[in-house]
């Protein structure tokens, strides 16, 4: 009977959760949809009445403008080969008679120098299934050479340095700067993961989506609505907190009441992560979303040149982290949170409202993750999987510091941030996450409780 009573409420709660996400993102959806090719058939070369087609789309990353006059060749099974040129809308539609795997290669020689260079894979392999029309083949042009992976803060450092090769300080110091900034951003997200784990025992695999949510809100407010950056950051903070609250109310609280064990809860968070991530992609498309930023140097410290956001966002991070630390150590609710994290039953027995503490932890975790997402938007373009791609680094930071210890999460984040950026001195930059993940595994072998954890926690 008990299970039956919760059923309708849970289903509606779940619906409400997705309704919230949809509602919160619908503005961005409208704007993103107007940018996606609703009208491509009009201007593009008509692919006759072919049952399938490939939509080649070439854009400039910086201002998201479409690039016309770029040549591309599509080759495929049965000797299929066709060369097209993009129209004014940056699209070229190629009719495909037979489903199969096709290769789209952009003719690099046709790219004007002003548009920079092609970024990402070229040629690109596109799978065309039966009746799939306008299968997308995106190509991004960019003047910035770096690939957009998280932690690739494409600017501090690399100041113009005309005399000979870089010195050791010129190699290390910019990386220390980016590493620390990235570590602070990770810390914002990691503290939420750590608090949620500490109070509820849940490893929240959907935490990355809270980060992405913040990044998308920041992009919508600053990039689409053209409001000042601080408005976007505050909006992301508030929206992230609201999302955390709605998630707890609509999903996690009913599941806790139902007595669902921790492993199923973890799998629920994976399902939620998958659904949310692709909901973002559904609304915003697979492209990169650039939050406007002033890229001129604001401060120069030796070989490290910093933009104004490189200075302001660590300051924001440090202030927020100090505030969190103060709340945790000095205030009543902070002490209650630590008591719940330490021993839930004992805390409940001594009169602490555990449910209220958990609710506050979800709101705070969501708000911090949202803030982290919005700030990440100033270092790299956000997209639908920004948060998911750093989730494992967040876990690594939390594990390194000690699962469930808040200050451990901070230290772990800084170590991981530094490690990710400094490791690129020795290993190829696309493997920089590997170093951080390896360190996490090694820590688990020798000190599974982490740097600040206590042995009893590993059970």
């Amino acid at each position, binding site marked *: 009977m008990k299970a039956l009573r919760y059923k309708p409420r849970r289903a509606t709660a779940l619906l409400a959760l997705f309704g919230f996400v949809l509602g919160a993102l619908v503005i961005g959806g409208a704007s993103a949809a107007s940018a996606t090719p609703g009208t491509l058939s009009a201007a593009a070369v008509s692919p006759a009445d072919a049952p399938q087609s490939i939509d080649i789309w070439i854009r400039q990353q910086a201002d998201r403008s479409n690039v016309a006059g770029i040549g591309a060749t599509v080759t495929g099974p049965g000797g299929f080969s066709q060369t097209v040129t993009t129209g004014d809308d940056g699209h070229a539609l190629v009719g495909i008679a037979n489903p199969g795997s096709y290769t789209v290669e952009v003719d690099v020689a046709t790219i004007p120098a002003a548009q920079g260079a092609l970024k990402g894979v070229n040629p690109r392999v596109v799978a065309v299934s039966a009746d799939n029309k306008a299968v997308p083949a995106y190509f991004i042009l960019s003047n910035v050479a770096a690939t957009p992976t998280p932690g690739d803060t494409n600017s501090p450092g690399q100041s113009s340095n005309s005399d000979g090769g870089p010195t050791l300080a010129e190699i290390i110091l910019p990386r220390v700067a980016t590493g620390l900034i990235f570590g602070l951003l990770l810390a914002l997200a990691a503290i939420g993961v750590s608090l949620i784990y500490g109070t509820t025992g849940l490893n929240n695999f959907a935490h990355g989506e809270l980060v992405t949510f913040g990044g998308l809100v920041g992009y919508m407010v600053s990039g689409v609505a053209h409001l000042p950056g601080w408005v976007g950051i505050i909006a992301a903070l508030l929206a992230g907190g609201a999302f955390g609250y709605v998630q707890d109310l609509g999903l996690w609280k009913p599941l806790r009441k139902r007595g669902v064990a921790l492993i199923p809860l973890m799998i629920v968070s*994976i399902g939620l992560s998958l659904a949310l991530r692709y909901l973002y992609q559904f609304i915003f498309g*697979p492209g990169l979303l650039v939050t406007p930023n002033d890229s001129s140097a604001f401060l120069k410290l030796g070989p490290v040149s910093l933009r104004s956001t490189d200075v302001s966002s660590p300051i924001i991070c440090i202030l927020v982290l100090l505030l969190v630390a103060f709340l945790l150590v000095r205030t009543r609710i902070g002490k209650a949170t630590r008591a719940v994290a330490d021993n839930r039953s004992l805390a409940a027995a001594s009169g602490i409202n555990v449910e209220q503490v958990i609710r506050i932890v979800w709101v705070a975790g969501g708000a911090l993750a949202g803030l982290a997402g919005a700030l990440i938007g100033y270092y790299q373009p956000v997209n639908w999987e920004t948060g998911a791609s750093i989730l494992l680094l967040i*876990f*690594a930071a939390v594990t390194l510091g000690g699962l469930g210890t808040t200050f451990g999460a901070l230290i772990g984040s800084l170590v991981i941030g530094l490690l990710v950026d400094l490791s690129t001195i020795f290993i190829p930059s696309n493997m920089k*996450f590997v170093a951080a993940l390896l360190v996490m595994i090694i820590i688990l072998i020798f000190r599974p409780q982490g740097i600040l954890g206590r042995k009893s926690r590993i059970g």
Partner: protein
Amino acid sequence: MDFNFITLALSQILEPQTIGYALAALGLAVHFGFTGLLNFGQAGFMAVGGYSFAITTTQFGWPLWAALAACVVGSIIFALILGIPTLRLRADYLSIVTIAAAEIVRYTVKTPDISPITGGSDGINGSSDTFNALNPLPDIQYHLGIGTYNKEQLWIRIVGWVVVIVAALVIRQLMRSPWGRIVKGIREDEDAVRSLGKNVTWYKMQSLILGGVLGGLATVIVIIPTSLQPDNYGTQTTFFLYTIILLGGATTVLGPIVGSIIFWVVLSLSDGILSLLVSNHLIPITSIQQGPIRFIIVGIALMLLVIFRPQGIFGNKREAHFSA
């Protein structure tokens, strides 16, 4: 309107992808369903097995049996590397380490520096020659109602399903043996089994190896008719496998196999219906927006399954409480 997407969906039953996922899901059921190991890195086992097979076949020209042995040995080594540090720890540590290790494998094989061996982001083509050389089927077109196959396509489908059935029978017998009772005992109460004098860590390791080898072999079935693509072995592959075993029943042998068939047929059906609706302008989304929908469906299905029917289609509710 064109309704041939229904045949297309039904033909998923014979697709090597379905067969491979059934085998990998069976391996994951050994880990998660039978032993209670929270392995979130099954995609890593699949990648390691697949690369071991593809590299030894295409680069070193090893015969089929030797490349298969390499696949098995690769999976075993990966299981040992993962298991030794983590099997003594609590379940959620294993989950984080396995998911991290799987991503390490994927990042590593994609590194341009070793792409002469691993093919980088493009993966490896052409590991099917030694397998197709053993094909005894006459060279004609085979019409099977749900699709027409040439002799190579039919050969991998037959061998694939035979492998899955043999593996399922072996696992069924194993789980009825004393060994199976011990690993199920570990799932229910590790300390109780330990107090009976059993070496729990070693049994968990055997289970990790067994399921991992099945995952490695699964990739061989998937890549023979197509190619090995590193990004097919990201975290979402593992999550697909969890959806599959929870759909069919994680604590059963039949569950992962039927789960895989249902999973891919339903995904293909939903793709077909969506394409139909989109191309006839019946729903207001673009064909680009159509792509993410299948993943949203999988994510929501995974949540609902775990919450409302954790035992899946064939499972027994008493066995499926998965307490940590």
